[in-house]
């Protein structure tokens, strides 16, 4: 229908640029970050994939954040859980991981799992079928919960890498919690995006949840963690990542 409306305009021009961009995954160039000599694929959606292990990690889903606000009287849309889970479903379809690691703060509060809508719970169960699912505990969800499947762990060690929620700065650490974002100014316009913050030894993953904000990588918390400003912000673009030295990024 869209095409017929435009037919008169560019009749002799085909194919129409921009209309045939379907199946975007086909064009995504893999962006790799090497942590402690382990090459990891980072996805523009904010997920991390470890091919060798068939491991997909996502951090800070903050499921049921909308309803968590509603409990306190701010009636934010109740669609964030569905939005986050459907993005995760797409990722799982693409990478077909053997194991999924949710890197903590998977639910915005302890009551979150109980508030899950039936349809969302079913979608979660469907994703877990045929693979291992590890809930790393976070500060928002420190305790194991019923009815959401998977196993609960404070941390996960595989080889030289350690997956845990709160970053400690230890070598080989993949952490979340901080919700890194980076800001770049180009031609007078400011662009602020979620990012992976990483040096050669450790990484902080971006928050994956639909309602999650961010902390600027120029915040002191990151300098404390990496020791200096010598780390890289891998900003999430529409279909690829853009790497900038932290020094090049702007504070908020």
């Amino acid at each position, binding site marked *: 229908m*869209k095409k017929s*409306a*435009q037919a*008169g*305009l*560019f*009749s*002799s*021009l085909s194919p*129409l*640029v*921009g*209309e045939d961009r379907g199946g975007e995954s086909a064009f995504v160039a893999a962006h790799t970050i090497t942590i402690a000599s382990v090459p990891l694929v980072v996805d523009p959606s904010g997920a991390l994939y470890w091919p060798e292990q068939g491991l997909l990690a996502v951090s800070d889903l903050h499921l049921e*954040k909308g*309803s968590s*606000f*509603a*409990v*306190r*009287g*701010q*009636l*934010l*849309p*109740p*669609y*964030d859980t*569905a*939005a986050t889970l459907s993005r995760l479903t797409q990722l799982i379809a693409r990478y077909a991981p053997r194991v999924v690691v949710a890197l903590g703060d998977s639910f915005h509060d302890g009551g979150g799992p109980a508030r899950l*809508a039936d349809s969302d719970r079913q979608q979660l169960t469907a994703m877990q079928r045929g693979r291992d699912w590890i809930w790393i505990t976070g500060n928002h969800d420190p305790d194991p919960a019923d009815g959401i499947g998977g196993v609960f762990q404070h941390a996960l060690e595989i080889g030289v890498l350690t997956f845990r929620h709160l970053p400690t700065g230890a070598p080989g650490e993949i952490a979340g919690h901080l919700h890194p974002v980076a*800001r*770049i*100014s*180009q*031609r*007078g*316009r*400011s*662009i602020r*995006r979620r990012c992976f913050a990483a040096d050669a030894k450790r990484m902080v993953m971006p928050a994956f949840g*639909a*309602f*999650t*904000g961010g902390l600027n990588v120029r915040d002191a918390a990151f300098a404390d963690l990496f020791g200096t400003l010598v780390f890289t912000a891998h*900003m999430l*673009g*529409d*279909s690829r990542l*853009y*790497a*900038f*030295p932290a020094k*090049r990024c*702007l*504070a*908020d």
Partner: protein
Amino acid sequence: MKPATASGRPEPAALLPERFRQWFAGRGWTPRAHQLDLLEKARSRRSVLLIAPTGGGKTLAGFLPSLVELSFQSENRKRRQPQRTPSPLVGEGWGGGASLSGSPLPPSRIDSRSDLPHKGGGKESRGLHTLYISPLKALAVDIARNLEIPVREMGLDIRLETRTGDTPTSKRQRQRRDPPDILLTTPEQLALLLASADAPFMFANLQRVVLDELHSLVTSKRGDLLSLGLARLFALAPQMTTVGLSATVAEPDELCRFLVPQPLDGKRYADRVVAQPGAAPDVTMLDTSERLPWAGHSARHALGEIYDLIKRHKTTLIFVNTRSQAEFTFQALWGINDDNLAIALHHGSLDVAQRRKVEDAMSAGRLRAVVCTSSLDLGVDWGDVDLVVNIGAPKGSSRLLQRIGRANHRLDEPSRAVLVPANRFEVLECRAAIDAVADNAQDTPPLRTGALDVLAQHILGRAVGEPFLADDLYAEVRAAAPYAGLARTDFDDALEFVATGGYALKAYERFAKIRQTKDGKWRISHPNVAQRYRMNIGTIVEADMLKVRLVRARRSTAAIPRGGRVLGQVEEYFIEGLTPGDTFVFAGEILRYEALVENEVYVSRSSADDPKVPAYEGGKFPLSTYLAARVRGLLADPKAWRALPVQVRDWLKIQQWRSLLPKAGDLLVETFPRANKHYLVCYPFEGRLAHQTLGMLLTRRLERAGLKPLGFVANEYALAVWGLSDLGAAIAGGTLSLRALFDQDMLGDDLEAWLDESALMKRTFRSCAIIAGLIERRFPGAEKSRRQLTISTDLVYDVLRKHQPDHLLLRAARADAATGLLDIKRLGDMLSRIEGRIVHQSLDHVSPLAVPVMLEIGRETVYGEAADSLLAEAADDLVKEAMT
């Protein structure tokens, strides 16, 4: 409806009590015809719209009926109780009306320590008689001060008080228990008063509501909120009447509708009284002997001539359109101020204390000139201004007339104004405006359709006040003129939104803010809903503002010194574009951006001659449709060019020769190559906002056609798009049809697709979400918790758009986009106007008419929403840096 004539009116003696006539005589005044007309209307209990020029005694006219009525009341009371005994609530030192003269009104007749309930026996409570609503807090305070003079001089037993955001809580509480006779306040405060269980008591005896500067109030969401408040007042006090005070407007009938409750079918109007207009203003255009610039808004060329004008007049008001222009002009005038004239600066971003200082100096006659923005369009009267200078485009006829009215408040003498165009196009606009002023043509915008987000806020406020039935409230709301056409489904959606968020997914029943009880009435589910409503009331959603603090310059590595003077506030998004070390003009100085510390921008004085960052936006008005049509008419009529300066005439003649000048209804599209790029320039004259939206949509279409557009720039008159493909050849070869390119269907899918990502749309959504109460900005308790309690509205927008595209807030945001930052409605009107009337000129090089907009390239931000391409560019820059 004809204004009442003198012949049909009783004699002044019958309308004005002796005391009032003596007071008028004592000042050497005679009551004006419209003042007596309003007394007459009050006597026959009619609501009325008074249209009068500034300086016509408009405010006094609005209050006279109330003063007269209140004076009768107290006379009667005195007659009944010759020895007035203080009531139990009366504090010490109140000795009856007569002893008042010569002393300021006692602030309070009641001992504020007393906690006696208002319904306590023995007190003869008159209740609130008259409510005065002003768009500006400062105006309410000023009017109160002015009104105290006649009250005092006539020795009237009338208590008048103001109520603004600055009024202390104790006084506010007391005002509800024991209302004054006359209360002067703002639309927000009225909403707060209505959202209280005391409202039926407080307003039971209300006789009159006076609405000042009504023409300005009704054009925004504040007007919507006010209209709903009025509808509530009419329900609480059916006996009350309204008086609207207004400057001349294009559609006075619309304002008359605003003033009275609308019937469910048809329309009802208040009476109209039109005061005698003052002498016709004397408006000229500065005939500069300097070379007229092609572009820009600084009017740098004319500063010497403006300075001479200041020298030749007593007090000059210099209006400019943006804050950055105000800053520039102020600086530049001081640069040539050899006589050390007292020239001041006034705009909305300056610190309030600083603004008050300027206003006070102005009132005291200590200033020779004030450079100001629309911050002084309204407000306090200054008698001594004898010249208004308007730099840049006047934008609209009514706006210009308002500004001119700020000079010379003596009706019998003409106001003097000089227009200073800053570039060639503005010469055309100034010429058109002068003609429009001579015709007294008005181009104020039409009355708004009430916004749904404001309705939602009002619904919650009503529930906070007292429980209501949905049917009753729907009927009450439709009495407000902007909501007269409100569909029941929209009302129900708004109600549903307030209750549970209005989501298709019924997830929040148990978290409802308001609930229906067995009697069918809606009431708040928890007292803290009321508290949070009160903290978040209002419809003015400012961009996030940051305080600008002056500190000493930082030495390379040292820590930034803290704690300097606050200069004012700037928008957060302006600062976002800066990097430390950038310089910009603010508060009359060139400042260096040092750092952002928490919510404050630290700046230091800079020794730079020119600021690196040219401008920040703020206070840009679009060219009115009416004036735009006049400019197009002027352009198309070479005979009318005689009234233009020679330089401008020559410019148009060369354009005629090189390219062509379009007929009044046509759209001229020029294409030409320049420096390896191909340009398409069109001249819709629909204002920057509509042009930006058009530019966005055209580039989308060109991109889809494979014509590789690179960017565009818009000004008030024209739009230039450029790219790598030869657009002229594509048109000539038939591969690109201009008719199809400018087809109205761009407002369909293309617009929708663009709106999805548009930053402007997100900003629009944010205001709606805040006004409707989805996002609360203020919380009970510490400000520190703010970060945890707020959520980015952009994220909410994205999620909502995908999962419930017809949600009430998205509908509200789209309605705003039609007229607000995106001006889609105007663009739509333009596209239908030019259908079949596009004239294409393929040129070898840039045309004279295109020069101004071409010069904006590089000066203005190049718009484009493709943030990703900028990221890619920034990343490439890094690579280049690394490789060289």
